[in-house]
């Protein structure tokens, strides 16, 4: 009996929450986004690509905003752990002397917006929503401790610089363009080195320095056709794959000696 009562309580609670949400949504703007491609296929001619994110702000009967809208999109790739090494001179030769492990950091991170982050919201808001590399958490293992360190930390800066050079980390304050007051698009560049896996897309709508709506989407990067066949073969059937590679080597060598036979 008590169980039934508590169940009824939960249902009622959920109903109330739903009604509250609906009324809240009705009063405010809603965000609708769509990606040009839900599944990026890596085939043998893949050399990076560009996804387009389209979005619309549904205002319904929300009051007009005096300063217009701002959009921030954060795209996060599959997570991986990286070892960062620092070289120093020891007895005249350059040796890796110090290392830090970055744990479960995104392999790809793009923070896109329509104007500089600090013009969209106050630092406290940016910090809370992790908008900008300065506010993103990159957990490091330093000896036995796990922590994100200060922004000025040399390893953190080097890590961000190296990822930026590989075009895997980017923050672009002009990547989002408004086609109309409530219609926007953003291009998401994906380099060829982008890791296979699922990518999370988070889009946030700002007005007057506050986030007023948020929505998420996702896309997948996967290998197809021959590329997929090779990867599956290499990982599932290592021995056969190795023997096949050697046979391929021997055949190639043998063919060459037949083709170029001079005697």
């Amino acid at each position, binding site marked *: 009996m008590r169980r039934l009562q508590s169940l009824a309580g939960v249902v009622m609670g959920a109903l109330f929450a739903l009604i509250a949400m609906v009324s809240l949504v009705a009063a405010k703007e809603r965000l609708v986004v769509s990606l040009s491609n839900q599944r990026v296929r*890596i*085939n*043998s*001619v*893949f*050399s*990076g690509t560009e996804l387009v994110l389209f979005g619309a702000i549904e205002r319904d009967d929300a009051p007009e905003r005096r300063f217009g809208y701002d959009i921030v999109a954060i795209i996060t790739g*599959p997570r*991986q*752990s*990286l*070892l*960062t*090494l*620092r*070289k*120093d001179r020891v007895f*005249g*030769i*350059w*040796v*890796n002397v110090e*290392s830090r*492990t*970055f744990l479960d950091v995104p392999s790809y991170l793009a923070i896109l917006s329509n104007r500089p982050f600090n013009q969209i919201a106050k630092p406290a808001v940016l910090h809370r929503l992790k908008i900008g590399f300065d506010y993103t958490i990159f957990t490091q293992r330093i000896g036995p401790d796990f922590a994100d360190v200060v922004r000025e930390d040399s*390893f953190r800066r*080097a*890590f961000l*610089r*190296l990822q930026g050079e590989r075009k895997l980390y980017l923050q672009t304050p002009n990547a989002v363009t408004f086609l109309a007051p409530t219609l926007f698009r953003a291009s998401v560049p994906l380099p*060829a*080195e982008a*890791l296979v896996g699922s990518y999370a897309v988070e889009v946030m709508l700002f007005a007057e320095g506050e986030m007023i709506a948020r929505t998420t989407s996702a896309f997948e990067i996967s*290998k197809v056709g*021959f*590329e*997929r066949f*090779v*990867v599956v073969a*290499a*990982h599932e059937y*290592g*021995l056969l*794959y*190795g*023997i*096949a*590679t*050697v046979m*391929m*080597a*021997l055949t*190639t*060598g*043998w*063919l*060459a*000696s037949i083709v*170029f036979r*001079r005697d």
Partner: protein
Amino acid sequence: MEIYLPIADLPVNVFLVFAMGLAVGFISGMFGIGGGFLMTPLLIFIGVSPAVSVATVASHIAASSFSGALLYWRRRALDLALALMLLVGGVVGTALGVWLFTRLRSIGQLDLVIALSYVILLCSVGGAMIAESIRAILRRRWGDNEDVRRPGSHTWVHGLPIKVRFKQSRLYVSVIPVWVIGFAMGFLGAVMGIGGGFILVPLLIYVLRVPTNVVIGTSLVLTLMTMATATVFHAVTNHLVDALLALILMLGGVIGAQFGAQAGQRMRSERLRLLLGLLIFAVGLRFAVNLFATPADLYSFRILEGEQ
């Protein structure tokens, strides 16, 4: 034309990789070496990760050394029995080398040890070959023949016990130095990711006194066998052999090796040794520069394995 490599996970220009295979193949055919010490750094230079480079180069070397070995086989210019005997030591050496490789990696100084051993080994072998071949060239020019030790003459090595006859090489020698040389080759190959042909050839000539006409063929057979084993080993343990990359390299490599072998036979052997010595020395210097020069970037990073 760009093509995406499935295991190396990056796009490369097919013609560039083919040309690299061709060039290294030419050199390997000319000198009877595998060319791993050239190909591995080249692949790393175009952005392939060192682990994938080492694993893939093994199969490329297998192809070009097989193509070269067939050429010498038709001329009966190789000693299969000697190659097999060397392989016995090679297997033990490879096992010990892999063990050391793993140990060094856990300490975290594998890169340094590899770079240092490249510098020491390449500079000393290259330097010795340059010196020896210049002496030989000068001797020929002045018609001075007094200090020539012909193949077949004896050193203390030939006084060791357990002698075996190698018919093709017209050699009656103890198996101990043969095993030791094979062991050293396997060990170096596993630790440094090189076939070791450029060390094996001089060792066979100067220590075992194997006649020069069968040295290159024999060296190619040993390289073929160790590299084929290494390919399978890499494929089974860490799945890092990129078959597509290997195929492009091989196609270039075997064609280059054919032309290289023909060019090599037209050249006088001491000139050939001088050229090879210079090449090896230059690669050694390149590694030395890397160690001593201030790097462009003090920071580097690598993805931790098994945690994709």
